[in-house]
């Protein structure tokens, strides 16, 4: 199933028996709109300790290797972040490199 294909409803004859779903479908399910608070990442304050990344229950802290092949934070996946605020709470930086703001619809 590709992104946004969720609207095609398979019949019982088309579905594999036993509630089997192809792996990785959580990626297609956009849960970001559940959010009431949004984490804001402050790049200038971030020390890239990855504590937010390991703490995030929705794998919504985006990381990538930099030019020295060190893993660094690159942003937040707002498609899947549910706004729980664990990242902001766990951020060890004085003054916080992630802060929560009210979600504006």
């Amino acid at each position: 199933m590709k992104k946004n294909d969720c609207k095609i409803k398979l019949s019982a004859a088309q579905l594999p028996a036993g509630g089997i779903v192809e792996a990785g479908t959580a990626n297609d399910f956009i849960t970001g709109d559940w959010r009431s608070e949004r984490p804001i990442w402050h790049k200038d304050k971030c020390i890239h300790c990855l504590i937010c990344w390991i703490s995030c229950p929705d794998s919504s802290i985006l990381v990538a290797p930099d030019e020295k092949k060190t893993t660094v934070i690159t942003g937040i996946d707002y498609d899947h972040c549910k706004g729980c605020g664990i990242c902001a709470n766990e951020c060890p930086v004085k003054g916080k490199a992630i802060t929560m703001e009210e979600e504006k619809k």
Partner: protein
Amino acid sequence: MIKTVYSKGKLVAKTGNEVMAEAMRQIEPDVVAAYPITPATEIVQIFSQFVADGIVKSEYVAVESEHSAMSATIAAAAAGARAMTGTSAQGLALMWEMLYIAAGLRLPIVMAEVNRALSAPINIHGDQSDTMGARDSGWIQIYSENSQEAYDNMIQAVKIAEKAKLPAMVTTDGFIISHCMEVVETYPDEDVKKFVGEYKPERSLLDTKKPYTLGSIELQDYYFEHRWQLAEGMRNAKNIIAEVAKDFEKTFGRKYDMYEKYMMDDAEIAIVVIGSTAGTAKVVVKELREKGIKAGLLKIRVFRPFPFEMIAKDLANVKAIAVMDRADSCSGTYAPLYSDVVTALFAAGVMAPKVVNYVYGLGGREINTDHIAAVYDKLGKIASGAEKPFTGIEYINVRIK
């Protein structure tokens, strides 16, 4: 009396539990996870000894409860293993939540189940309340009249479950079969192994090259389709059970069907019953036949899926029928087997037979030939019109007043 029907068969004296453990040894599943409970304890106890002695290569998981036993068995089956367990009564009740999950995930688990009364009051003896309660869980249910059938049913259940992609429980009546020493014909290990074959699941969670999600949430949009699949799977299982029985007869020589018809061809009065009581009833039928009374017996072997079309056909010409349930559904209406038999008849437009319901043997209460003869006597009176069929449930051998 059991005689050898298979050229390489061997007559042995074994209890129902011993012979179910023997079938498990020969099947040699990849994983068995179980928790002991009377009267099923011996099955997994003996099997765990086979594991400890290195006689089988199976993984034995000693868990802390039946809920965990079923959970571990489900996990093993989902991982691609041939997985089995065994339990009884309260143990089955504790598995409840997971029974539906095993069926919903379409995992071909085989369970040796010894029928025992459910608490309260606490009672360890045989009745079929436990599995009757699980009759709508999506498990195939195969009941056994004696140890021979328990052994044969276990071997067939593995194939049935794997072909139907449904879990299956094979039952014996607590103590009456589970602890009673009988002569049983067993077949050589290699022949049993060849019959059940190697389990090759289409997909398994340990196949990391083809990852998939099992047990995901399905709400209004998908749940219904998968439940329809499960119900359809159960309907289709009837043909699979028949095919496996045919294979089994061809290999080992013993004939099995969804139910057994005993002197039913010209029967005017008949009992429908499940399990060991069928053996007792056969003795009565034989005696009645010697007196010229056209009595018959229909013994249900497979209760789930319920062979309703065939049953309606086979009971259509019987004048009076007694459906004997070794479980009461406490529903304000009739007991489980009666409800299904009458539904089958009514749906097929079979209105002629007078059908009455008896509940007997709860908590292991004795049911003997005299009790059964009295039922046939009553049926004779109903069939001749001398007595009207009673409504509601009649209870056998219980002190009411």
